[in-house]
């Protein structure tokens, strides 16, 4: 098993490669082609090469609203996750290890529990007769329930819960790369806690915040189960719209076109963000 024998490497990766060519490359290509097919209520799906589906989506205000809502939800989730997840990662980083393992389990454990279960928890918490509204009304803080269920706000709250662990992980990893001496140096020169956090820790955590934001944004933009349960029929996002086209309307070509537009939108955001980050950090560290 010499490292220089590429034949062995190709043989070893052949089974995985075959599986992926058959089950991810072929299906994605087929779906891309499907998005150009035409659909009629009486004729069904017919092979074609027609840009009509894309034109329909891009010219229809109904779809604009859905794409805009999805984008805004993803943006809000990313911003809130960064604001909450960054200090939490820093607190964890400074915690003694016995406590840290326990807290880490509490924060990252939910990541491994089905998103359906977690979303159910939020449905119970934020309903009109949910725990949050009943408590606030019981305390006399509000007169009538705040409408959270079936709204974008409710979806944002639950998605922050679902995705913020990714931010904590990313920032945590970045913090471990920093040199703790920089903090001590700042402290010995008389910097206060706040100054140390904003001037020393935050800039060094920035690569983690940025990579965490990428993950959170792309997952929030394509989230399905949470908006499907908490958004109901009214507050639709791109993923639930694709689901409806495929499994209710049965207009697969239109659903495929919407999904392809989502894929392209997410990729464009990711790539331009990457370039922005690279340029910025080339300036800082270059």
């Amino acid at each position, binding site marked *: *098993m010499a*490292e220089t024998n*590429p034949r062995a490497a190709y043989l*070893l*990766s052949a089974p*995985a*490669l075959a*599986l*992926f060519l058959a*089950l*991810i490359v072929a*299906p*994605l290509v*087929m*779906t891309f082609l499907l998005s150009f097919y035409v659909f009629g209520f009486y004729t069904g799906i017919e092979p074609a090469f027609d840009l009509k589906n894309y034109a329909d989506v891009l010219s229809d205000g109904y779809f604009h609203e859905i794409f805009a809502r999805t984008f805004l939800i993803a943006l809000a989730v990313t911003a809130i996750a960064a604001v*909450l997840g960054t*200090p*939490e990662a820093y*607190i964890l980083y*400074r*915690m003694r290890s016995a406590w840290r393992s326990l*807290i*880490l*389990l*509490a*924060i990252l*454990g939910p990541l*491994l*529990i*089905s*998103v*359906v*279960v*977690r979303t*159910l*928890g*939020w*449905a119970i*918490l934020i309903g009109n007769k949910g*725990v949050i509204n009943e408590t606030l009304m019981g305390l006399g803080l509000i007169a009538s329930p705040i409408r959270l269920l079936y709204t974008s706000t409710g979806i944002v709250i639950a998605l922050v*819960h679902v995705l*913020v662990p*990714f931010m904590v*992980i990313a920032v*945590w*990893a970045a913090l471990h790369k920093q040199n703790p001496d920089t903090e001590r140096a700042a402290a010995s020169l008389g910097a206060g806690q706040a100054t140390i956090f904003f001037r020393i820790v935050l800039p060094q955590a920035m690569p983690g915040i940025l990579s965490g934001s990428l*993950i959170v944004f792309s997952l929030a933009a*394509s989230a*399905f189960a949470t908006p499907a*349960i908490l958004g109901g029929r009214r507050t639709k996002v791109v*993923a639930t719209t*694709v*689901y409806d086209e*495929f*499994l209710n309307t049965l207009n*697969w070509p239109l659903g*495929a076109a919407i*999904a392809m537009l*989502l*894929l392209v939108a997410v990729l464009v955001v990711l790539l331009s963000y990457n370039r922005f980050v690279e340029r910025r950090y080339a300036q800082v560290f270059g």
Partner: protein
Amino acid sequence: MSRNGPLALAFNALFVTFMLAPLAVVVAVSLTPTGYLEFPPSGLSLRWFRAILDNPDFIAAFWTSLYLGIASATLATLVAVPAGLAIGRYRFAGRGALVGLFMSPLTVPSIVLGISFLRFLTTIGLSGTFVGLVACHAIIVMPYVLRLVLAAVVGLDRDAEKAAVSLGASSFTAFRRVTLPMILPGVAGGWVLAFITSFDEVTVTVFIVNPSTLTLPVRLFAHITQTTDPLVASISTMIILFTVLLLFLLERFYGLERLLVGGGGRE
């Protein structure tokens, strides 16, 4: 390093509460003796846990999810170990592209994967079948296994293997008796993480099941979008307990911190 101040500890307490509240509330309402979701429950009863037994479709869905998780995690591990060895040890043309391809299930939105699998499985006549589910889930969980295998392979001491070969072991024997035992924690950790990912998956799966191959999360999802009764809470509580048990196993075998922050998860 300086200690966290009171403000930091208060923030930490709020954050942990935020993370655990939705799970705690599910467990709490599952204990209600009434026929509707109430919080706090007016009494304690296991009525809705007994009710699970009267719903054979949920039990069937649990077995489907269990077998699916085992089969897809095993299939993914079987192809990820050799691929991980190849990627971790050799420099060859197309290596970067291969890593990108194997990690792509993490970057392509799940909804896009779901419809692509549906389109593909329908074309080859496997839509809704268990075999189709296993193959698609193997793709979805592959990145998790591969990442842990890679972490194990890269940190490996090659001398023991070289010694085995120089003492006359065939390269397969050297792999089986020397390399495999050394990367086993990574492989086992990857398998369990893959199992959990498959067991929880809903966005892709919802497209490729049929009524006879419904998985537990998809069955639960379908039930919740129709009605919310304490039954969904008691089933969710069972899922939480089952996952906590697996987390405990992972902690023993591999270490959660290493799994979630080090080699595992997304980067």
